[in-house]
């Protein structure tokens, strides 16, 4: 057999394989669609179904270049269907932003964070320039003999901290508005099996199997909340060409899984958890490529696996609630200021949150959180500090039988003395309408993870109609 024959045969084989793969994907898509359609028909025919929707809109203006920085309209519906032991919940969501600052016009790697084979079921079902339609959540709940099983696309929250992600890392996050949206809106629901097994004496086991490797949706360069802090994104060096390699996602059908034991003991809610997971943001490896004339850096984003051991506890003493949370990540990855070890240092990380909530008289609620994370094997080349410290304070007051709510939130990141201040007034007009207005202000060193958004500080107004 000569070389040409060999080549031809190889080519033929490749083609055949490609074709087969395409066909398989098509078939899978068809199956999925028909299954979806069948489910919908089944659900719509059911008598025990409930349907509700929320239409909301939020407009925001940023201060530095005075411009409309957000003009979002969102329609989210919820469809519930119950049988004796099972209930189904489907939440389709349509979102559009007309400000052109939150979503890039030309998404480059937006879909890298979704598993290639199941982009549509995990990520957006359909996407146009500024409009996106997706399934916010879709799951079935079943109870059998005390065990509750929730299977489907869902959000799972672990831990006791608010807004500080130590144990609350089961779901990836939509980072396009940084930490500003409600947690419910920023978490990306993933497909998983979530079994909850009750044990005697107020104990329980929760078991998660997550076959869906969807990762956090990151911001595109040039958008309002694109990350520029050197701690989080490698800085370009003048005269060095950057060669961006394709993102490396986990191969094969690797799963995430977690187990959590929770108990209510002597007035304490305690839990211990184990989570075997992929970091939701990729590790950016940089390799200096000195070949050729140009000095070139190969940049490759790789998703890496790790283990998280977590403990959390909370209890109430009189009018104070104490919340504690600690997480040990076996492998965390930190950017270095050099290109040794491909620009990344790997180390276990221990993060803790201590929080105190005080329910003051006259419907005033005060909540303070202290966050500290320590890189356990620290090297001086790591950009982040060995010990990173943050404080948050939340003040909230409700008036007029819970219809009017005033809130103020402050976050201080001690590493760079940067942070954010947020205030919000929301009013519930009636059962259907609510209105709000607020201001989000970022301050501090632009190198800091909050200070980097100094120019994205904004004021906003919004409304929501439920029907």
């Amino acid at each position, binding site marked *: 057999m000569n070389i040409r024959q060999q080549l031809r045969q190889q080519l033929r084989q490749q083609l055949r394989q490609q074709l087969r793969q395409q066909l398989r994907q098509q078939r899978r898509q068809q199956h999925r669609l028909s299954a979806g359609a069948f489910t919908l028909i089944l659900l719509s025919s059911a008598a025990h179904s409930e349907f*509700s929707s*929320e239409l909301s809109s939020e407009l925001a203006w940023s201060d530095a270049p005075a411009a409309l920085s957000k003009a979002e309209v969102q329609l989210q519906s919820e469809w519930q269907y119950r049988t004796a032991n099972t209930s189904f919940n489907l939440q389709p969501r349509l979102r559009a932003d007309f400000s052109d600052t939150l979503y890039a016009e030309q998404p480059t790697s937006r879909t890298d964070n979704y598993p290639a084979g199941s982009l549509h079921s995990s990520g957006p079902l359909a996407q146009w320039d500024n409009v996106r339609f997706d399934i916010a959540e879709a799951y079935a709940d079943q*109870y*059998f*003999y*005390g*065990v*509750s099983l929730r299977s489907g696309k869902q*959000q*799972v*929250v672990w831990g006791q901290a*608010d807004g500080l992600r130590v144990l609350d890392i089961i779901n990836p996050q939509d980072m396009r508005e940084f930490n500003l949206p*409600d*947690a*419910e809106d920023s978490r990306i629901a993933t497909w998983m099996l979530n*079994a*909850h*097994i*009750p*044990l*005697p004496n107020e104990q*329980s*086991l*929760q*078991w998660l199997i997550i076959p869906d490797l969807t990762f956090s949706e990151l911001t595109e360069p040039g958008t309002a909340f694109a990350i520029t802090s050197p701690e989080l994104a490698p800085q370009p060096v003048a005269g060095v060409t950057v060669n961006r390699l394709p993102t490396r996602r986990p191969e094969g059908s*690797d*799963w995430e*899984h977690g*187990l959590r034991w*929770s108990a*209510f003991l002597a*007035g304490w*809610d305690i839990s211990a958890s184990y989570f*075997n997971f992929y970091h939701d943001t990729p590790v950016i490896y940089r390799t200096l490529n000195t070949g050729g004339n140009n000095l070139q850096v190969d940049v490759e984003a790789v998703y890496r*696996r790790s*283990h998280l051991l977590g403990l959390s506890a*909370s*209890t*109430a*003493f*009189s*009018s*104070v*609630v104490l*919340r504690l949370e600690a997480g040990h990540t076996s492998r965390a990855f930190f950017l270095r200021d050099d290109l040794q070890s491909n620009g990344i240092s790997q180390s276990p990380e221990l993060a803790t949150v201590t929080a105190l*909530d005080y*329910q003051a*008289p006259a*419907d005033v609620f005060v909540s303070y959180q202290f966050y500290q994370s320590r890189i356990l094997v620290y090297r001086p080349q790591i950009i982040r500090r060995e010990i990173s410290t943050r404080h948050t304070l939340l003040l909230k007051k*409700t008036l*007029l*039988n*819970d*219809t009017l709510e005033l809130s103020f939130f402050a976050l201080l990141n001690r590493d760079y003395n940067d942070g954010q201040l947020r205030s919000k007034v929301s009013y*519930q007009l*009636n*059962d*259907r309408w609510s209105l709000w207005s607020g201001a989000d202000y970022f301050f501090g060193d632009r190198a800091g993870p909050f200070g980097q958004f100094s120019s994205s500080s904004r004021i906003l107004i919004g409304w929501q109609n*439920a*029907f």
Partner: protein
Amino acid sequence: MNTNREKHWLLPVVRSGIQAGVNYPKTVLFAGLLLMALLVAGLGQLHKDTRADAFLEADNPALVYKNKVREIFGLSDPLIVAIYDRSAEGIYRKQTLDLIGQLTNQLNALPMINTARTISLASENNITASADGMVVAPFYDLRSTGNGAAVRQAIEDFPLYHGMLVAEDGAMSMIVLELYDDNQAEAAYDAINKLLQQTQVPADVELHVAGEGAVLGYLGHYIDHDASRLNPLAGLIITIMLMVAFRRLLPALLGNLVIAASVLMTLGFMAYCGVPFFVITNAMPVILIGMAVADSIHIFSHYYEMQARHPDWSLQACIREAVAVMARPVTLTSLTTIAGFLGLYASSYMPPFEYFGLFTAFGVLVAWFYSLFVLPACITLLKPRVSQRWIRLEQNSQQDTFARLMTFVGGSCVRHPRVTLSLFAFLSISGALLATQIQVNENRINTFHSSEAIYQADEVINQHLEGTNTLDIVITSSRNEGIFSPQVLNAMEALQTYAETLPHVNGSSSVVDYLKQMNKSLNEGQSDAYRLPQDADLIAQYFLLYSASSDPADFSEEIDYDYRLANIRLNLDSADFIATKPVVEALQQYIDQHFNNAVSDEEVTASLSGRVNVNYHWIKDLGVSHFYSVVISLLCVFLVSALLFRSWAAGLLATLPVICSILTVYAAMALLGIDLGIGTSMFASVAIGLGIDFAIHTLERLKTLVADGLKGSGLFTELFRSTGRALLFNYLAIAFGFGVLISSQVVPLTHFGTIVVLSVSMSFIAAMTLLPALIVLLQPTFIFGEKKASEASAIAAEKHVAGSTVLTLLFATGLGAAVLYGALLYGAVHSQSLQAAEVVNTETLATLTADDIVQRVNAVDDGQHVSSQLSMLLTDSRGKERRRETMSYRKYFGDDKKTVFFYKSPANVKDTGFLTFDYAAADQEDDQWLYLPALRKVRRISASDRGDYFMGTDFTYEDIKQNGHISIADYQLQRLPDDDGKLMVKGTPKTTAIAQELGYGEVTFYIDPQNWIVVKSDYLDIKQVPLKTVQVTDIRMVDGIWTRHQLLAENHISGHRSLFIFSAVDYQQDVADHLFTQNTLRRGL
């Protein structure tokens, strides 16, 4: 020191020792037969003990007391002959009345019947009034007048007998018989049945025999009969199996020799030790048959295999080789099985179970000895030749259907180890969860098949009369004639009244009933005189009067000669443990709280006794004992396996299939509705003892194959083809052996057989699938040696993460299941007993203090659990409305109360949930959680801000929690003049701090004395300014409980109002415990 085990000095000694049967066949055979003869000779002394009492140690207080009571009152477990007349007149027909008289005489004529204790319509006396006082005359004397109508009238006028001696509908009457000696129960039962069969009965009349005495009498015979059918059947099946397997008669005969040795020698040994043959001992022969045949199969197969494979070898060389190869696995499996049964011995508290564990372990030892020594000796002497067919079969067997099946199934599992693991994890979890459904229960009548006459008799008698089961309460006063004290008698009457309110207690009798009847007859038969006389002297006179008219010994069952002790006998219509347990516990609680200190001037105590009480005492610990036996047996087999393979991992691996099988059995028991009773509770040790063998054989074989240099897929193919096939036959032999039990007429044995077959099947399947899958994943060093570990690279380690996680989960699940199961059993034993009913005094309303009133308010029954829909209509001062729809559930867990609300609409609060644990202990703060859907998180909230408004309503958290009650700890109470028929109580917070917390300076409660519900409350704030008014309307009775359906709270300062409307209130439908968990809060309804 030479560390190489191969060269250890002990080894040759052991080797030659093992070959003793081959080297000195005659000596060994002689020794074996001699030993057998010696032990079998003891069989003659074996005696049966099928009494329920045998399940308790002879010195158990409950048993000792029962026997003491029996001596005093002459009480024993009665035999009941019921006469059931379906005709319109019932038993008051003349023919039937005649029949009762005739039967009573005939039955009393039987030598074992204690005639003085017979209770029958034909022998009992009526107490009536006469001109000069009291007439005591047999009911039967009235027969001649009025065609039975007079008898009917007399019975109906004597409340004690109405329902007890004759059914309330008149369709059934009973003759209660007692024996001189319980050991004659079987003879008495036979004699009575014979007598009844010979009796000519009128049309529409049926005769039944039941009662604990009858159960006792028939059980021995019934079980004997069953055993005499089952054991030969098991033997026959095994023999056939052996013949089919080896195509020769001799292996079958020799196999039976081992079986016979093991079974008969064990029973003989039991006899020598003076241990009786208990009800559960029936299962032992079948178990030993299964064990013994497995050992023989292994020895014989290998012996024949050697002949087939090495036609040039001498037969002696073949048997030598067979013994050498099989000695280790046979010994290992025997040791682990023995460990399993010793676990049962160690963990049991009931003598029959202890002996069962101990002697079955002995039987396994005998089987080991005979298989490994006497059987080879016989083979050496008899030189059985392998059949050519067997050789052909054996040669083909490597490819036969069985081998292919095993290779296919096992191979699939080895190729997809994680799938296998997940599957077993799923099964185990399901099993663990289903295990929570299992209940500890036992009822001796259920031993009988439902087609048995005694079973049907029991059912029909319990339907018509007060019940065949008896519970005695013995009252002891400190002095002679102490029972004459009206205080004592009143307390007895109250106790009897209370007892009759308990479920399944249909009637009671004591001296109180006779005294009431005497009082009535001495008061011209007025029905309102059916009460206790309140004068000790008068009571003594009544007895005197009675003795003037009749035999004072009539009361020997109710009161002792010195009138110091009295007995109250309760009749129950069920002997189910789950039915009688609450009764016994409620009575004990009542006695402790209300009876034992009821009489002030003298010491009077009450103690429970009787059959139901004894049964309660031995069954109550059954669940816990079962749990310990499982844990200890597992621990034993784990330790022995670990020791044998010198590896903890091996111990764990060998035990896993057994754990899986036990969990599967729990699942099956729950699904088939099989209760954990005496018969079924010992399955676990048997399942562990038998099931462990499969795992041991698999591990041992794998180890040998690896040592022979096999690796990769070839290793497992060889395992499944050879050992897999052999184990399949081994499994089938055991399964068929135990399968015989399924055909038993003794229902617990049927259940026992079913679940043992199931568990052995599961152990076999797990050993063939789960175990290889685990070995593939874990590559344990005790099989593959240390080399593998060093070869493992870092990447491989990372890849193993998933596998090891699954394994961790599997273990966690197993552990969780064990904990869950333990808690279940603990819960079953320590579950909440019935509350003793409070006796309410009828004081006039005017004399009640504020505290009295509040106590009554707080005592209003609010149901053990309730579910309701709650609509909240919130209106602000401008008339703007908001409406919230919620579901609310409340349930008491002991004295603690848990409440949960789920918001259903509108959309902006939908899925919000609120959970409260409200503790009875005054110093324990409530625990509260709020679920906010926007956070997807259950938040702990502090409970001390009880004055805060609940979810935007005008009710505070405290208002919601109190649920219509008034907190005595918070308020200083003062009664105000009544207002329009409503009682008024003013509450002032006891301290300023409490006032601050509550947000109230003063509250006026308006209480409706009809139902003790607070219908209106006026609240002043701390500055004594009117704050709000709560009005309760639409109070309706739901399921017997006064229920508030509308609550309106009006805030006078803000002008805001909250209207709560409750609907679909349901106290009946059970409210699941899991509703009150953070998980349900998170997931919603």
